């Protein structure tokens, strides 16, 4: 197990360095730079700013300056927002995205898994049809449509919840539902098909034949195996959701990390692009590692390191 973890950590570091290199190359290859403005700035001022951000150095040098900073935990200063460091940006916006994400994940699990189990066990009965109808709807409706609808009903018409921003505990409700909608539906469908597959297995028949009550068969024997595809799906999903969803954060004007993802690219804010990407990549790699380890607990057959 130890050797496995060590191995994974090593390959993770390589992955992240590769990601940095590719991101660095890509962002410098697209036209425009952090100093691109609607109103063109005088040459001298441009020159001064280039020097300030080391943009006048050769690319390889910029690359190593960045890596050197990163090794000491310094992700540099934003080239767009004056006097703000990338570390500050992540430190302030990630907790918000994470809070929102945790609630969204809780919603999707608490709704998705039970709905999937119920419709599998009541296959082709009305419970199944209803759950799958809602799930299809959930997968089909894009989150921005759901978000706009929620804002209109609960924010503008009924006035129960704040329409936007991050002002009180009520602020989390609508965005987390909008964020969870698609995945809850997806998980329900995934759970359903997975449970259906599992309950047709021989060992379930054996369990039933032994006269075990249905509850025990489902929860003790079937569910554990049926959850494997969901865990696989959850790993990267959690990373994505915790680091924020750009669309939902933008619609609800939530000051989370997701907004920086896209904005930094259109701003060509090089340090922020890299910082956010490195952060997200590390998170993703880490979550994948967790999933691999969790597998071992759910399914002894794929226990790692053996």
């Amino acid at each position: 197990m130890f050797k496995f973890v060590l191995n994974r950590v090593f390959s993770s570091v390589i992955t992240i360095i590769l990601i940095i290199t590719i991101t660095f190359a890509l962002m410098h290859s697209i036209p425009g730079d952090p100093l691109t403005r609607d109103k063109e700035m005088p040459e001298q001022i441009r020159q001064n700013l280039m020097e300030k951000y080391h943009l006048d150095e050769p690319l390889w040098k910029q690359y190593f300056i960045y890596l050197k900073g990163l090794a000491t935990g310094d992700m540099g200063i934003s080239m767009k927002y004056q006097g703000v460091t990338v570390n500050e940006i992540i430190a302030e916006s990630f907790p918000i995205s994470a809070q929102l994400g945790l609630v969204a994940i809780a919603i999707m699990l608490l709704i998705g898994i039970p709905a999937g189990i119920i419709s599998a066990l009541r296959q082709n009965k009305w419970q199944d049809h209803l759950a799958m109808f809602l799930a299809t709807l959930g997968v089909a409706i894009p989150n921005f449509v759901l978000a706009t609808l929620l804002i209109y009903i609960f924010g503008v018409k009924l006035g129960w919840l704040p329409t936007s921003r991050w002002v009180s505990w009520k602020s989390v409700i609508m965005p987390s539902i909008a964020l969870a909608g698609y995945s809850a539906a997806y998980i329900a469908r995934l759970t359903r098909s997975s449970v259906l597959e599992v309950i047709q297995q021989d060992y379930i028949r054996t369990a039933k034949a032994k006269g075990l009550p249905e509850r025990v068969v489902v929860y003790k024997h079937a569910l554990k195996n049926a959850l494997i595809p969901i865990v696989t799906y959850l790993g990267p999903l959690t990373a994505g959701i915790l680091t924020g969803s750009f669309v939902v954060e933008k619609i609800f004007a939530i000051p989370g990390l997701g907004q920086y993802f896209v904005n930094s690219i259109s701003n060509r804010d090089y340090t922020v692009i890299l910082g956010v990407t490195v952060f997200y990549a590390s998170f993703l790699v880490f979550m994948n590692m967790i999933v691999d380890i969790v597998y071992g607990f759910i399914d002894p057959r794929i226990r790692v390191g053996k």
Partner: protein
Amino acid sequence: MKKKIVVLTVVLSLLAAVIAGCGGGAQEEGAFITHNHGEEPETIDPALNTTVNGGTIILAVFEGLTKLDEKDNPVPGTAERWEVSKDKTKYTFYLRKDAKWSDGKPVTAHDFAYAWERALDPNTGAEYAYQLYYIKNGKAYNKGEAEAEDLGIKVIDDYTLEVQLESPTPYFLKLAAFPTLMPVRKDVIEEHGDQWARSPETYIGNGPFKMVEWKNKDSMKFVKNEHYWNKDAVKIDGFIETFIAESSTMLSAYEAGELDIIDQVPLEEIDRLKKEKPDELHITPQLGTYYYAFNVTKEPFDDVRVRKAFIYALDKEAMVNKVRKSGIPASAFVPPGVPDTGEGTEFREVGGPIYPTKADPEKARQLLAEAGYPNGEGFPDVVLKYNTSEGHKKLAEAALEMWKKNLGIDNITLRNEEWAVFVNTRQKGDFQIARHGWLGDYNDPMTFIDLFTTGNGNNDTQWSSKEYDALVDKIRNTTNEEERMKLLHQAEEMFLEDAIMIPVFHYTENAMIKPYIKNLHKSPLGFTFFDKAEIVK
């Protein structure tokens, strides 16, 4: 079973903790106005700011030598009076002695001298430094060709500032009220560096309000500055700037009563708002023009007849009224709202229309035929470029349709590019026709006229006329206001006669303001002033 209950309790309480941890703060007590700012400002350092919305904050926290009144005329601000030399190149400002910074220290002429010198200092890297190029040696110093001592800024004593200009600049008093020219504190900036304009403790101003909170990506809060010399005139306790970037979300928040003022609405909602909330929707002209720039060096637009044919074939009224639903159809480049010489006159009214706002297909076809393309036959392939946005796309499609119908040209294609790519394309002149827009920096025709001089970084049309450059130079050195205005009209006619672009419409601001907000001043330059605003419920 017990174990499960324990696990469930732990999970639920964790979730409750997460939810309880979300957000913070409650609705404001007292007379506060909530104004949506839009995208969070990159900086609110007066020297470094380039945005209109950043300007709204700076003009609330600082006060220049002059400030703008309701009609955008300069009136005494921190300077209680001034003298102008006979040749109109030397201004002597006398500062009021009761002006104080928000930490109680007196405002002196040194603060202005320092702020201007700092904005011009090449090491500051201020994009808007050119707003100070009117000061003697301002440009030279900013380019590293002169020393700070050579600048035409002289502190006579603590309360007297003498400014020597490069040439007579009739709008200098208006410029003195522009965000870039606000005074700043040397001691604070030297101690805190770049960071000074980020935190309420160090963002010290001399204006009617002071910042008390900046929540990243969410909002800023400002309260009345008790040290402001004219604090009794300030009626509200303060204001809040929120950073909602989506226009549909802004409108929802406004309609739900969470915001008092929004500066834009989704264009597709304008018709509904006109019907439902006519008293709250304020459509006012903005000093800006949306246009299509021709690259006059590229075929087929190197022929003025082709350019004119394209102008006459476009129905700007339909584009504004049917497609965009907002704006004022343009008949020339300088927008309405820019004053002319006489009291209350406007440059646009005096100058009149130069091109019709409706299409003139006959004339268009005739011009095109003269250029050698009767009914569009043999016309080369043309690409119209615009930056990716639904709004620009709709307008470009409408234009395409009109050119096809009125000129018979059907080999025009549209190409959209992402913003930063597009800006590059345009600056390099890598286009035949491109969408463009220009917002004035100050309320004088000059901000629209000098745009098309040779070497101006924003003259993307690649048009270059020695005659025009000489005319603009002459305007800069003309002291007689009537004569100057006449020359400005002449200049506008000159580049429009050469048809280097198609003025499509003038921007308007479509703001929503709650009826209980009174005496709020919105300038055509886009700034919102809260210093005289009141809440009457």
